[in-house]
């Protein structure tokens, strides 16, 4: 734990962490200092002047909170008349050339300018000269649309491209009221994290082409989740909404702060991976290629399982630990071989050492922890010997060409327990639809051995069963979440003394826990 110091805000004593600037230190105890240009990931820039606070008996008496470290005994003034005047005046300055087109602006509802206007300004504009005309609806590339008129020139996007992605596509050109953010001619945003500038922008200057005009943000329900796009397991907010007469669908993924995993950002591929949760889903149970009620198909599966002498099971590396445990128990009961073969999920050379990983599966580490075999030889020989292959959401077409897969599966009946209607699912003799990762709760272990739990994000009109439930219906003995967690506790020592709901929100670092267990 960091050292604590005591200081005064508006005459009230508060205890804050030492070594932080005033915005972060005071913000952590719930006192908000307004700011536009400061962002914890990008550092203090001090250009917006919105965070000016008074320091009683201080020299200078007026400081930008983003650049001022919290010191013991400091007397910070936030609600003095002269500070309020400053905040009001800064807001008035920001709004001089702002088009105030909130009705058509996607940021409306999560806009700092709106929030601060309501909190600090609430005055009519005194301007009677025409506003400065700047570029609108500019295509910055990478799905980012820029509106120069809405911009408050805080420079967060510029600093992001310089400091985080180190690509520097954006710059601020011109001065004073003519200052604007722009790309260099012919060189659009072209980094794999560009979508973050949309989240970083405190106003509606940066909007996402993908999300543009799809929803007003106040309609969206926010559910915390874990991105399953790669092995990093970035923390995301799932913004979803059920429109009248329609199904609950996801409109966007936004990064959610987790210092231990992804920090403040996510990659663009992960950001757009919400589309796969809405589209291309397997929604009906199939017998052959005919849709049948799920109970009929499950009964047919049970018959197939009884008939088959040798059974092979294959598991997706995207499955949660709980699902893996349930399927593992099923394999043990059936005396079947369980494989986690999924080399096709790895894209060598795609990772960049920041967030994006080569491995496009969210829980490969979980396969290792549970001791599930992942080798190709073992999988192929098991499939060749088996009369029945039960595939739990593993998209084998990622690992095999379709013709090779057909050859491999010759003479083997396939039950596909699948969330998506992939070409591999189409090859199966029986198909059972299951929930995808935004629709079930579970936990995954990422590439850095951090175990993270996530809750069910949304409920579809026609809620599909989780793989755990299907495994139980097929005969897995682990009927309840408690039993599944108990099995996980056996395999993962770090979970031994934990309750399922006691897994920290930031994730449980298994490396630390392993080390702790060894020394103890």
């Amino acid at each position, binding site marked *: 734990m960091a050292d604590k110091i005591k200081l005064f805000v508006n005459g009230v004593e508060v205890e804050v962490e030492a070594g932080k600037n005033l915005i972060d230190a005071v913000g952590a105890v719930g006192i908000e200092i307004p700011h536009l240009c400061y962002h914890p990931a990008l550092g203090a820039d001090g250009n917006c002047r919105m965070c000016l606070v008074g320091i009683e008996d201080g020299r200078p008496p007026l400081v930008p909170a983003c650049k001022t470290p919290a010191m013991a005994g400091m007397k910070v003034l936030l609600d003095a008349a002269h500070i309020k005047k400053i905040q009001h005046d800064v807001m008035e300055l920001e709004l001089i050339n702002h088009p105030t*087109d*909130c*009705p*058509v602006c996607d940021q*409306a509802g999560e806009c700092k300018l709106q929030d601060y206007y309501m909190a600090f300004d609430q005055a009519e504009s005194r301007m009677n000269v025409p506003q400065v005309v700047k570029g*609108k*609806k500019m295509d910055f590339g990478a799905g980012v649309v820029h509106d120069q008129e809405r911009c408050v020139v805080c420079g967060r996007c510029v600093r992001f491209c310089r400091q985080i992605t180190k690509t520097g596509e954006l710059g601020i050109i011109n001065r004073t009221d003519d200052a604007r953010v722009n790309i260099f001619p012919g060189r659009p945003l072209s980094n794999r994290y560009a979508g973050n500038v949309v989240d970083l922008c405190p106003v509606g200057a940066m909007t996402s082409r993908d999300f*543009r*005009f*799809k929803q*007003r943000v*106040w*309609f969206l329900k926010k559910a915390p989740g874990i991105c399953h796009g790669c092995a990093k397991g970035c923390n995301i907010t799932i913004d979803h909404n059920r*429109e*009248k*007469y329609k199904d609950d669908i996801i409109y966007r993924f936004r990064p959610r702060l987790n210092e231990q995993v992804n920090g403040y950002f996510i990659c663009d591929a992960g950001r757009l991976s919400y589309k796969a949760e809405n589209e291309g889903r397997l929604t009906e149970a199939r017998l052959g290629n005919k849709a049948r009620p799920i109970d009929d198909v499950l009964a047919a599966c049970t018959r197939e399982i009884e008939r088959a002498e040798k059974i092979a099971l294959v598991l997706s590396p995207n499955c949660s630990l709980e699902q893996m445990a349930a399927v593992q128990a099923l394999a043990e009961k059936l005396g079947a071989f369980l494989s986690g073969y999924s080399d096709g999920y790895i894209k060598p050379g795609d990772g960049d050492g920041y967030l994006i990983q080569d491995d496009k599966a969210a829980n490969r580490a979980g396969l290792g922890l549970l001791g599930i075999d992942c080798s190709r030889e073992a999988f192929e020989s098991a499939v060749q010997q088996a009369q029945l292959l039960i595939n739990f959401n593993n998209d084998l077409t990622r690992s095999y060409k379709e013709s090779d897969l057909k050859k491999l599966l010759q003479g083997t009946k396939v039950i596909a327990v699948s969330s998506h209607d992939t070409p591999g699912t189409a090859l199966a003799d029986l198909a059972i639809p299951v929930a995808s990762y935004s629709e079930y709760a579970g936990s995954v272990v990422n590439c850095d051995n951090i175990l993270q739990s996530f809750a069910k994000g949304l409920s579809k009109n026609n809620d599909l069963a989780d793989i755990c439930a299907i495994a139980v219906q097929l005969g897995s003995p682990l009927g309840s979440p408690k039993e599944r967690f108990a099995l996980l506790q056996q395999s993962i020592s770090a979970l031994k003394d934990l309750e399922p709901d006691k897994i920290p929100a930031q994730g449980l670092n298994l490396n630390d826990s392993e080390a702790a267990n060894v020394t103890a």
Partner: protein
Amino acid sequence: MGAQVKTIERKGSSLQERLYLPEIFKGMATTFGHLWRNLLDNRKLYVRHYPEVQPEIPVRWRGRHRLTTHEDQTVKCVACFMCQTNCPANCIMIEAGERLDGKAEKMPVKFNIDLLECIYCGYCVEACPVDAIRMDTGIFSVTDNNRESFVLGLEELLTTPGAFSEEEYKKGGA
């Protein structure tokens, strides 16, 4: 808090009342008195001769909705969803899209109002920042025989004219 009991005096127990017929004739005298009086001269009747005589709709009457247009007949609505957000009956369903004619950035590609669910409160009109939705068509009676036809679309909302002149409407307090 005990309930207050008030005993009402029961009528109809006198001999004349219990004889029944005298009371019937008294009642009938009143009824026929009105009938003859009104047959001879109906000017004093407090009844509107609807539908022969249509009611006079004041400007501030909240009738069926319409979407207003710019002078070149293009839609004024910018699909800000304020009306949908405010609608207590949740009867407005909008889908937004890109607008390319330069009048605004955004416009509705779908704008449905389900009149069966609408409670005619007028909150949508008050919420609209660009005066795009009004309830000044003077249409107070919407009838049909299937549910679907009560869902007004963009086309229908745009083509229905207002029943009042601009000056009258503005005077009405809009």
